[in-house]
């Protein structure tokens, strides 16, 4: 049924740290790797080795340039490059769920994960229209809607070692920019991170109440002009003596200027 649950027992989701993300796309690859051979239809590629490759991804990393305003003295601060991973935010008020005509899209009342039952999906694409974040992609081969499952087949999977029972993107992130946990618990890792670092919602004005939170980049400190090698490149003998000293003076005396 495509009605949303009034509340969910748990609110599982991700915290994504825009301060530490280095834009390596490892989460994109590990996500595709896990999800193309597990839950539901594979994540197909079209023309993968040709001139115009496209494919289905559940997680994509954008990069944005942010130019801070000029300082009071008129100098322009350096622009910042911020890498921005984006996947389903598992919204509390998910517009993608209620528009579904078949009941294929649903939000689980036990943990808040938004899923697609691919056996019921007719591939009308309306859920992707309703999502402001671009979190859903219609697979061109299977004709059904694909989206982040929060690796529902990993997080409860007792066949996996305990440290692997988290979403593939979180498990793989080399810069620890992705965190998985329960937002319904105020003392969970993700709740604490959100509270302490000022975690925010994407497009709050759309009223979707996303569960996933983003942590803002920390303010950049201004490093003084500093060169590690400079001390070693100083001339050892500033004033030459003996024959070299005479040569230096003699050459300086010639017309053509002093070097």
């Amino acid at each position, binding site marked *: 049924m495509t009605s949303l649950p009034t509340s969910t027992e748990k609110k599982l989701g991700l915290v994504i740290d825009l301060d530490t993300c280095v834009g390596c796309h490892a989460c994109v690859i590990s996500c595709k790797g896990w999800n193309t051979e597990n839950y539901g239809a594979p994540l197909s590629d079209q023309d993968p080795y040709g001139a115009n490759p496209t494919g289905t991804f559940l997680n994509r990393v*954008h990069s944005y340039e942010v130019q801070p305003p000029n300082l009071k003295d008129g100098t322009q601060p350096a622009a910042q490059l911020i890498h921005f991973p984006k996947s389903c935010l598992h919204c509390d008020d998910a517009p993608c769920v209620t528009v579904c005509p078949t009941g294929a899209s649903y939000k689980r009342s036990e943990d808040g994960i938004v899923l697609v039952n691919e056996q019921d999906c007719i591939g009308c694409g309306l859920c992707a229209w309703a999502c402001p974040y671009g979190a859903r992609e219609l697979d061109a081969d299977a004709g059904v809607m694909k989206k982040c499952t929060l690796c529902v087949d990993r997080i409860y999977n007792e066949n996996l070692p305990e440290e692997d029972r988290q979403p593939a993107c979180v498990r793989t992130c080399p810069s620890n920019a992705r965190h998985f946990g329960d937002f319904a618990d105020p003392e969970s890792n993700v709740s604490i991170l959100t509270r302490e670092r000022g975690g925010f919602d994407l497009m709050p004005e759309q009223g979707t109440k996303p569960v996933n939170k983003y942590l803002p980049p920390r303010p950049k400190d201004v490093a003084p002009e500093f060169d590690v090698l400079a001390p070693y490149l100083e001339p050892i003998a500033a004033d030459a003596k003996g024959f070299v000293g005479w040569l230096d003076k003699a050459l300086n005396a010639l017309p053509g200027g002093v070097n």
Partner: protein
Amino acid sequence: MHPAPSVILFTTFSGLGFGLLFWLGLGVIAPSGLSAFIWFALAYAMAVGGLFASTFHLGRPERAIKAFSQWRTSWLSREAIAAVATLIIMGIYALFALFGAHLKLVGFIGAIGAIATVFTTSMIYMQMKTVPRWRHWTTPALFLTLSIGGGALFAGQIVTTFLLFTAAAALQGYTWITGDSRLAQSGTDVKTATGLGHIGDVRAFEPPHTGTNYLMREFIHVVGRKHAQKLRMIALILGFALPVFFLNFHFNHMLALLAVISHIAGVLALRWLFFAEAEHVVGLYYGKR
């Protein structure tokens, strides 16, 4: 939004078909025998043909029957139910009309069903918060005016057609004028999309991939907007001005046919613009509209 031919054909012809069924159901024209067959065949060809075209938009059309289940929340599901219910009710009305009996109550319910079907179609678009241009009362108003206006033209109601076409053209003009600024007024921009606006000006620097993807194909449509202003004028002329001009003369079937063809071409152009000009907020993540 990508102006998919299947959806343009669907909204145009289903709109006209249900518009004609509306007038037939109201009994404004009450044909019987062979002429009833021709009228209803025309209306059903457009309504059902449009619905059939819409299934080409589906990834798995063989499961389309499941779309009747979620009427509690989904406008698409409500549309499917309203369309099929209307076609069945008007089918009964048409069957009796063939033999000269006009069941007034059945026709009246069918006419309301036809209006409801067009309204549910328009609400699929109007409900999209992600497409600010559509999220406005003008979307259902325009869909309904175009549908019953086109239906009146098909039903040969010249004065009604003239009035409804005037209203539709005015409404369309108002929709364009107010719609052009609605994305900017929606409060959603790249700053709220990324949450980075507090640092400074945000610019999309690198997309996630070198090629295209489903989201960009479906939601970002830039090329065709170049000629939008010209197309708007052409659509208004073909859709409303020319048909009214043709109908001004003493009625004959040749002129009526020209009026109908011109109107269909105009509405197709309007629907193309309806999709091509609509900006989905996901484009903000790609620095495009």
